[in-house]
Structures are given as structure tokens and as C-alpha cells.
């Protein structure tokens, strides 16, 4: 995937915050350093929280990074909206087509 920042050898480039979309601590901190501190914007620019885990791993970590860097309390940082399906579901199941008629 296309990275928001160049590789520089900074150790934070090796700390993965979002395992679904391969986003590092440095990418998130660079955005915050540029003034982008809104979790909704960080989410859309880096795609944290938008992969198969739907934010279960990364969102708490990102909230703690934002809190540390901006001085806000973690509970002042809103959690992005969660939506259905809460866990990944196969399209064929949703379409009702995973039964016998599928064997054609």
C-alpha cells in the first residue's frame, strides 16, 4: 500500500499499530505532528480501523497515541462509529446462497 511518509530508519516504522492495513506508529505520529489530530481523519487517511478486525486492535492504541501527543484524556477522544457486520461475513451467506443450489 502507499505510505503517507517515506522510510527513514526511524524505529517507530517497525511498530505496527494496525495489523490489517499495515500502519506504523510513525505514520500516525507524523499525521498528528502535521496537525491532523481527529481520529476520524486519521482513520480515513491511514485506514486504521477499516480492516477485517474493524478496529479491535488498533483503535485503542491510536487513542492512546493521540492522548499522549495532544495532552487530551483518552475518554475525550471519540471512538469511530461501528457498523454492521460487526464481524466479517461471507457474501454468499448474506445472499442466502451457500446451500445445495451452490453446487452447480
Amino acid at each position, binding site marked *: 500500500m*502507499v505510505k503517507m511518509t517515506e522510510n527513514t530508519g526511524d524505529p517507530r516504522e517497525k511498530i505496527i499499530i494496525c495489523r490489517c492495513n499495515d500502519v506504523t506508529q510513525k505514520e500516525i505520529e507524523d499525521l498528528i505532528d502535521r496537525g491532523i489530530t481527529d481520529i476520524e*481523519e486519521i482513520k480515513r*487517511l491511514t485506514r486504521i480501523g477499516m480492516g*477485517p478486525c474493524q478496529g479491535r486492535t488498533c483503535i485503542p492504541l491510536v487513542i492512546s497515541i493521540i492522548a499522549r501527543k495532544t495532552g487530551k484524556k483518552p475518554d475525550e477522544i471519540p471512538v469511530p462509529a461501528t457498523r*454492521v457486520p460487526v464481524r466479517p461475513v*461471507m457474501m454468499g451467506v*448474506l*445472499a*442466502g446462497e451457500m446451500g445445495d443450489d451452490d453446487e452447480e
Partner: protein
Amino acid sequence: MKSEAKTVIIGGGIIGLSIAYNLAKLSESDVVVLEKGYLGNGSTFRCGTGIRQQFGDEANIRMMKRSVEIWEGLKEELGHDVEFTQSGYLFLLYDEEELESFKKNVRLQNKFGVPSRIITPEEAREIVPLLNTDGVIGAAWNHTDGKANPFKAVFAYAEAAKRLGVEIYEYTEAKGIKVENGGIKAVVTNRGEIKTGRVINAANAWASKINEMAGVPVDIPIHPYKHQGVKTEPIKPGQIEPMVVSFKHGGVYLTQEANQGGVIGGYGLKYGPTYDITPTYEFLRGVSYRFARIIPALKYVNVIRIWGGFYAETPDGNATIGRINEIDEFYIAAGFSGHGFMLAPVVGEALAELIVDGKTNKPLDFYDPYRFERGELRGKAIQMG
């Protein structure tokens, strides 16, 4: 926050930001953009990412031809990658009537230099190997259509506009517009008042509210309809490169994101007018069923998320762009009916030319905000989703 600006643009989506950037590019950089949430959150970030020139009328074809030219150079122009890729648009056609109407469109598109053509089902399968072509008798294909990343495009326009001196205020909502003797005096926001003589309504789904604030005396029907999008887990890149569209299956469209590999798309299920964008189970089931009709292998792919967004619709499915004569220096660029993202580069350019030079060579007359009052609706724009 500035207390005075020559121009105030209401709406920090890609349309407002493109207008701001293009005004600044023409040396009109005393511009403030007001966004009531964060940039792009209204409709841009919720869009289906497609960019196409395959329309059925001259104005949209010409506008999109120019827009694609701009999209092609946007990374260099704005200094940030917007992930524009010309992976094409493929319209699947299932009967003679549909085929004839797309043949007619292709002739018109070719006349204006868009290299679209009608291809066979076999050729369509060469482009998208996983395609189910049962019942397909042909397809309309244009390889210069494509897609881009809405998140990065908004970011790129905003950064480029700021470099030229534009000020952008997020979480700043227009609450009122002061008009005296037919001229604009100020925009009132939740964070104070900005004196200005010019307002551009780029609020799309909320445009009618802004018109009301200014007392625009023209009937410009723009209503918000909820549409939804879906995204699957990543699959091997390059499987579904173009945007694949089928009107037979309820206006379904789908494509694979170039860098991420997930399949995204939607179909013509809409609710409204409404300002509610809660996703629905009805959509989740309906879109899964339709995707499986077009690409059967998607049955085995997990859906990871769905989301809602607005089509700010007008009665003929075309935007309203232009000057409101009764209020000096009040402009509108809204009601994009699902086409705002793809049109944004050319709309920004055209409106900035109209404002700064007093004229533009783009066919903005087609989007005349007064056409509804005059009862001169345009042919319905080709619309999906």
C-alpha cells in the same frame, strides 16, 4: 479565525476544496472554507471512488473529459498522490434495447474524444476474468475512465489550497448569512462572524439549508437520499480492476481498490429524502446478492464493512452550478446526485473561471440553477448506485 475574507465557501468536501484551490490558483486566495465536521465527511469520503466519462449527454461528457485530464496530472499539480488509476469502466448490457442506447452514447462520447467502445462478452471476460457473463450480449467499455482515493484527494486539495493562502476551518458551521440590499455582508458561524461579500454554497446534501439562510428566491430542489457502500476483505490484486456496472441488477457497481485489494461498490437502493445515514441490513443482503450475480466468486469473500452517505439529488440527476442573480456574488455548486467526486476538478476550475474571468469555456449552462423554475429539466444523467 479570520474576521473578514473576500470569499467564503460553505462546505469542505472535494467540491468546496477544489473551488478554493482553483480560486487561489487564479490569484483569488483570500478564501475561507467552512466545514461543519471534518474535511470530506459529508459525501466525498463516502463515495464509490469512480471516475467516468461514459455519460449520455454532451455536457457531462465534455465536463468529465476535462476532469479526467486534470485527474491525470493531479498528483503533480497538488503535490500529493491521489491514487488515480485509469482502470476503466465496464457497463454490462443484457438486452437489445440497452445495447442500442449504449451504442448511441458511445457515438456521442467518441464525438467528443472519449475512446469508449462496445465490446463482446468474451472481451469483457478478458478484462475481468471472474465475470459472470450469463445473459450478457455486450458491454460498453472505456479504458480511460478510472477511480481515485477520495481520502487522499481531499487531503491533496486542502493542502494545496492552504499553500496558496486559503484558510480552512473545520468544525465550523455556517449558521446564517447576512444579506442587505441584495448583497452579502457576512456569514455567521458557531465560532463567530466572517465579513464577506461573496459566498459559494458547496454544501451538497445540505445546500438547500444554505440557500434558505441566504434567502435565495429561486426554487432549487436538492434533496438528500441515503445510499450505501460496501467493502470486502482484500483479495488478490488485479482481479476486478475496472468499475463493473450492471443496470439489470439494480444499478450495481463494484471495483477492487487498487492498493488495498478490497472490493467496494453499491447498488441503487435508496432511502429518503433523509439526513439519516445509518447502514441497513437490507442493503447488506441486497448488495451481497447482486455482487454474487456479477462475480460469483465473491460469495466466498467476507464483507468487512458497510456505510451510508448521501446522493444530493436534483430532479434530473444533474448538479446546479452557477450564479444566483438576485443576490450579488452568491454562487452554488451542489446537488451532484452521486457525481461530485469525479466532477470536482473540472467544477472547481470552471467556477473559478466564471468568478474571476466572468466566463468559462466549460458547458456550465447545462447545470443552470434556474432550469427547475423554468421547467427545463435535462435528460436524466446516467447514474448508478
